[in-house]
């Protein structure tokens, strides 16, 4: 009994480690943000009130709690600037994720069908951009997309256009930047599921009379859905909150929620509203996460 307990201890610690992590680095900061979102702005340090003062005693704490309100959330709902920012973020994320899936799937499929030793090379090629700083890569795109940049020079040289095209500060530039930056996050999970798929399954489908496109739609694609789900989530969620790429490549006439948050936080110094916007964003992003989780659970149940 005692021996078993000794052996069980490290295992039990390993099991609770992720929860400890979640509490320390997600739940606690989340509680701070939630509290700030219920506070009011103040010209003070920190720039909101009330501030909990544990030394002030029970009554002061009660007063502070009573001062919390949902005013900031009401503001978010009443001013359609926020609503538009959320909608734009979701539109950009949906469009970009769809583009990523369309571009990433054939690449991942091609990689998975390469001879084994070339798969490792292809994998390195997909990951290699990470060796350069993300910011430098986005600035490189500014260089490529500017008025006399590489892209326009090529288009002019090929006589595809007669005048330089305006790329920078457009949605096209932003989508190019997002697709470029997130492509590895789409390819890698897709590749992982496609590579471990038994090739005999596709052969069996062909053997049973399925034409190549039927083999893909009836066998390959349905079996790669876990990878599709993972890739879509890995791209969609960070793209919704994306700040740097739209800020550097897109125009300033319509903002994504990440940019709006930045403005509230750093320019307006309105921490409570920024926090409220962040909380709403989190709630919005929970929806696809929960959907994915339920889908996975159902697949597991069907599997059993």
């Amino acid at each position: 009994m005692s021996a078993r307990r000794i052996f069980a201890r490290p295992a039990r610690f390993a099991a609770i480690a992720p929860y400890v992590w979640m509490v320390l680095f997600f739940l606690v900061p989340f509680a701070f943000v939630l509290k700030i979102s219920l506070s009011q702005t103040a010209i003070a340090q920190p720039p909101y009130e009330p501030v909990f003062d544990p030394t002030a005693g029970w009554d002061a704490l009660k007063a502070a709690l009573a001062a919390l309100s949902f005013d900031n959330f009401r503001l978010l709902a009443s001013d359609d600037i926020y609503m538009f920012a959320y909608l734009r973020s979701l539109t950009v994320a949906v469009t970009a994720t769809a583009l990523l899936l369309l571009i990433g799937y054939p690449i991942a499929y091609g990689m998975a069908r390469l001879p084994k030793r070339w798969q490792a090379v292809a994998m390195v090629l997909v990951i290699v951009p990470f060796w350069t700083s993300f910011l430098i890569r986005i600035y490189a795109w500014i260089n490529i997309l500017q008025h006399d940049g590489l892209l326009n020079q090529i288009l002019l040289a090929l006589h595809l256009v007669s005048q330089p095209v305006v790329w920078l500060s457009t949605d096209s530039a932003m989508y190019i930047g997002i697709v470029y930056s997130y492509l590895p996050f789409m390819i890698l999970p897709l590749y992982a599921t496609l590579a471990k798929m038994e090739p005999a399954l596709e052969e069996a489908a062909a053997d049973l009379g399925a034409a190549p496109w039927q083999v893909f739609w009836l066998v390959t694609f349905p079996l790669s859905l876990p990878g599709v789900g993972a890739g879509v989530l890995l791209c969609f969620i960070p793209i919704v909150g994306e700040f740097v790429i739209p800020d550097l490549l897109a125009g300033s006439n319509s903002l994504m929620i990440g940019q709006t948050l930045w403005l509230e936080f750093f320019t307006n110094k309105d921490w409570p509203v920024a926090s409220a916007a962040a909380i709403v964003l989190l709630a919005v992003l929970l929806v696809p996460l929960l959907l994915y989780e339920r889908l996975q659970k159902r697949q597991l149940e069907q599997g059993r």
Partner: protein
Amino acid sequence: MTDELPKTHGATGAADGDAVAAGQPLLRIEAVAKTFGTFRAVDGVSLDIKAGEFFALLGPSGCGKTTLLRMLAGFEAPDEGRILLGDKDIAQALPHERPINMMFQNYALFPHLSVRDNIAFGLKRAGMARADIATRVAEMVALVKLEGLEKRKPDQLSGGQRQRVALARALARRPQLLLLDEPLAALDKKLRESTQGELMELQRRLGMTFIIVTHDQEEAMTMASRIGVMKSGKLAQVASPRQLYEAPRSRWIAEFVGDVNLFDGESKLRDGHRLIIGTRDAGALVVAEPREPVGAGRLAVAIRPEKVKLSRHGPVSEAGRETAINRLDGVIADICYLGGTTTYKVKLDTGGTVQASVANNARIDVDAYSLNQHVVAWFTPDDCVVLQS
């Protein structure tokens, strides 16, 4: 090993086997070859398969049997030669265009589809009407005794059940030819044996043509009516199981199929219908003259262990003919009890060893031999096979 394999091509290969119904073969493989890089996986194989046959492709791993099967299914295209199904060359046809189905080694069941949808997959692709599909699926489910499991997913089935789904799925389209790639390799021994019987029963009942690939010679011998033994991309011999075992064409086949005692020898002397071969390890051996005349050069005498008899004293020669029986004196060097039989290794006084497999006919055998006991191992000339070494 310096064995030279006789080149077996279609005509001789087919003539070797049991004479099944005459007429045009269902499948004709003509000088088919396939090279991967510099490796010649299949090297000029010609073979006729008759309708209704249960044919086994047997060989060690890497002999090209699976590549040959994959060319029949259409997963590989031959570099040379023709594959005629009826009188149509299908060598370059895509898998989904062939009236041939395959049962895969690890079954390759679609994990996202139920048993029913797995079986119906091929029928749907054939554009069969909904009601007909339901009827056919029910028929197939009954055929492989999977009633009640139609809604299960493959990973909710046992290995044996999965094997049945794979079989039903491959049979559902009623292919002209069913290919089976090591269909029983994933089953345990007991289940494998009972499934062998069921497969044979099914093949006979449906009157279908089966080609099975296996590395298990016992499996091939049990199930197939004809066996093609492959070695290094070539067909080494095509024959019925009995012929393969009793009249192997080469030393390699004799050793690959079952156990065998081999005695290398050279000189030969004719004595009526007998040949006398001087062997290094067992002295002069008398053998029956083979049907095909043996050429000059090194020879080997092959004798199966169960055809070697043991006794405490030499057998009385029939009709006083000294040469009628080969007798070898020796001592028991090793005893291997296998239940139904016991294999004795006899160290011969002439230097070699001979294995004798003796049936354990009685539960209490007071006559069983013991280690170091002096015995006489003997066998008749007719039980010997002379092989070109």
